[in-house]
């Protein structure tokens, strides 16, 4: 199966979206979510989630807390903050505007 890389700049949007849907996730769950929701089209270099998460922590879009997984292992769970929700809205609308524009160009026969 051929997989595509995530377009640059959209990784944080995907993470924010995943968190907005599931409330609280650890890194592994986010990677799985992105892969499954995209029906295996999008491939993440899974580790690249972590620098992105650090950046988002700094920006204050997410908070992190240590918790325990179903398999009884220690994992760091991330949650959206209010400003993270705002950021998601901004990124989504920006993405849709750009995507729409590209789409219009491409569809022009």
């Amino acid at each position, binding site marked *: 199966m051929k997989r595509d890389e995530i377009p640059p700049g959209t990784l944080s949007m995907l993470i924010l979206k995943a968190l907005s849907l599931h409330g609280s996730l650890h890194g592994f769950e986010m990677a799985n979510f992105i892969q499954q929701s995209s029906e295996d089209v999008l491939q993440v270099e899974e580790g690249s989630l*972590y620098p992105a998460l*650090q950046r988002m922590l*700094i920006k204050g879009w997410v908070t992190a807390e240590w918790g325990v997984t179903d398999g009884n292992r220690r994992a760091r769970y991330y949650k959206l903050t209010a400003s993270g929700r705002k950021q998601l809205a901004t990124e989504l609308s920006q993405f849709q505007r750009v995507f729409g524009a590209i789409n219009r160009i491409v569809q022009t026969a």
Partner: protein
Amino acid sequence: MSLNEALRRIQMLFQGNRFQQDLEEEMRLHRELREEEYIERGENPEVAHRTANQKFGNPTVLREKSYRAWGWNGLATVLQDLRYGMRSMMRSPALTLVALLSLALGIGANTAIFSFLDAVMLRSLPIKDPKQLVLLGEGLDSGQTDRYGSTDLYSYPFFRQLQQRNAVFSDVAAVLSMRNDVHGTVDGRDETELIHAQIVSGNYFATLGVQPVMGRMLNEADDSSEGDHPVVVISDTWWKRGLAGDPNVLNRKIKLGTTTFNIVGVAPAEFFGTKVGEKPDIWVPASMIQSVPPNWNYYKQNFSQSFLIVGRLKPGTTIKQATSNVDVLYHQIIRGFSDVDTSKRNMEHLDEAHVQLTSMATGISGLRQTFSEPLKILMAITALVLLIACANIANLLLARSTVRVREFAVRQALGAQRGRLVRQLLTESLLLATIGGMLGVAFAAFANRLLLRMISSGPDVIPLDVSINMRLLLFCMAITVLTALIFGCIPALRGTRIAITETLKDGRSTSNTNVRNPLGKSLIVLQVAISLVLMVGAILFIHSLANLNKVDTGFNREGVLRMEIDATVTNIKPSDPRMISMFREIEERVSTLPGVKAASFAAFFYHQGTWNNSIHVPGVPYNENIDVNHNVIGDGYFKTMQIPLLAGRSFGPQDTSTSQRVAIISESVAKNLFPAGVNPIGHHYYTPSEQPANDRVVIGIAKDVKLRNLNEEQQYIDYFPSTQSPWGFQHFAVRYDGDVTMIANAVQQTIHSINRTLPIGNITTLDKQVASSITNQRLVAQLSAFFGALAVFLSCIGIYGLMSYMVGRRTNEIGIRIAIGATRANVRWLVMREIVLLVAIGVAIGIPAAFAGNHIVGSMLFGLNGMDVASLLCAILALLGVAIVAGYLPAQRAARVDPMVALRYE
């Protein structure tokens, strides 16, 4: 960046370790979970592990990326450099210690001297807009009170007229040129105490823009009518020290003479008046001048020139405009006084008079006149010492960086950029300099107190703020960075400029070019040259001091007790017969004490100022430009001071206030101011203020003495008996034999048995008084000797360090030489020759520099004309001597090299 974000970044900085661990754990979990997933799907564990890792990406890169997300990357490298620098400093503790010590002394000395320079010369007065303030005249506090052309000191009526008539100042204030040190009583106490009083015009504080911390300052109303306003403002220091910071201070009173003053306000702590190095305890309005002993009547006299005048320029007014306005007014006011003396001589004087306006931004300072030159010289000396220290450290670092050549080559081969290595080395230098700088500040704080003590001639320390302040720290930081750059750059650039492959190939890591080390050698030459200059300077100053000490004062300075007695507390006028008889009684009773040989009052003993003017001697053309210094003395003066009388007699009981007025003249007055070939004894003369009818007859000739300073030209002096020129004496001297403390106690008891209330202070000896008049020269001599020695010491360390290093590097070569037949002496000479050559070149460069330096300090030297060849030779020999000692140890070590060991070396 929002505030929260910044806070999170900072938090992160301090929790760096936890962050790393969290991230590690998080990423490990991720990989493990993925691995397990693959195994569950039936993959072989090894493949699962590999695939999981592959999918995850390079963890090191990710870790760094995450770390960078926090934005502390640059700082982290710096910290890393610092840690590395710290470790490499620890690896050579001896070198580090020497470097730190040199830096601490170098930077500390610079900071200490700068703090004095700042306090005495640079710092602005702590008042509102000091730049707008100007002083009329040049701030000289010795005026000419009997001439019209004085443009430094002014009368109080002159001040009032100028205040009303000028067009250029928003306000003008007057302050008495001298501080009155009087004895007063604080209410509720029995004892009188010494109080420094400053007499000022009522608007003094308003003009300066100084606000009270409590109560109010003086105002115009306090200065509106003479004698009616017994109020004072006190200094913060005196409030805390003299009144124990009494919160109720505004209800307290101070009695000076018969007048009781109310304290109306406290001045702010930082305000010390207008004169640097003089801090009044109280400020008294000029209207009360008569009640602040000693009984001056300056308030209404048009020609008692004793006030300094300060003006605040109106906004937009230039100094030039102000000068021309003041100049015009000066002539109008003086000529307009009703009692102006329009004699031709006075008018000629007046025509020539011009008022010069001087900026008051940094205040008036007698200290500045005394110490600005020595301070500048000392600043230059300490800067040179610092330069030597820098050269030293550069050399040591250079030697070390050459040892580290392989390390750098390896690192460069592994891809480290040269810029990065230079940065690493500079960080190390900066680290060294910063620690040195901090030690230096600590050293300066200590040295400042010592220096202040050294320049304060009396028992009280001069009130000068030389504490470490912001400006000083900035200065210190600046020189720290500068030194780091100076001594850090050369080794950093040199050490990293490497032909990598060659160095790596050459297992011995010592190519010959490095052994020759021309840079290190030039630094040694530079050090030697500077050391020579400093040493010559030190020897010259010491020589000059010795010359001063050898000066014949004309009196015997040994065995004389000195004290000051404030008779103004009795509130009796000096001319009152009761006062004259009290002085007489003190002199007589003290003279009969066991162990006392003689005792006398005098208007001036050595180094206490003078009162002078010209004299009219019949038979000799009058020359108003020749001043004779008058002294009013008790009958025992010559006996006490042991000043030989060359002819005639001394004063005695026969010289009373009603008998023929008499005088004793000094040898040079007799020789130069009296008609040649005529015996001055029996000859009459008079001063301008005495009428010819009231003239004096010369009854004796005394040997010439020094008056103000040891290095002054011969002064003309005459002496008047106290009965005929009453003087409110303060100065008392006792020639004694035996234990000074016992005599001092007995003298004080005797004085108090005559008048219990007389305050006695400043108890010292004539010898100490003479010594204190050359404080300045002694200070420069001692400090330059100290710094000269320091310079030589640092240079020796430099020579020793470089030579040891070179001997170490050349062990191999030396071994070969010995093996093929060189004697130990040959080897020793091989090393010594190098040292002697370097020192010789340094000396050759240093000699012309020393001549130039000598030229600059020439005016500060006494009894030395041109370059003192003996001093120069002395310095050269001393320098050669210590350099040879410093070089001998490595030479000796070279001579002891065992050829077998040396050849196996490396």
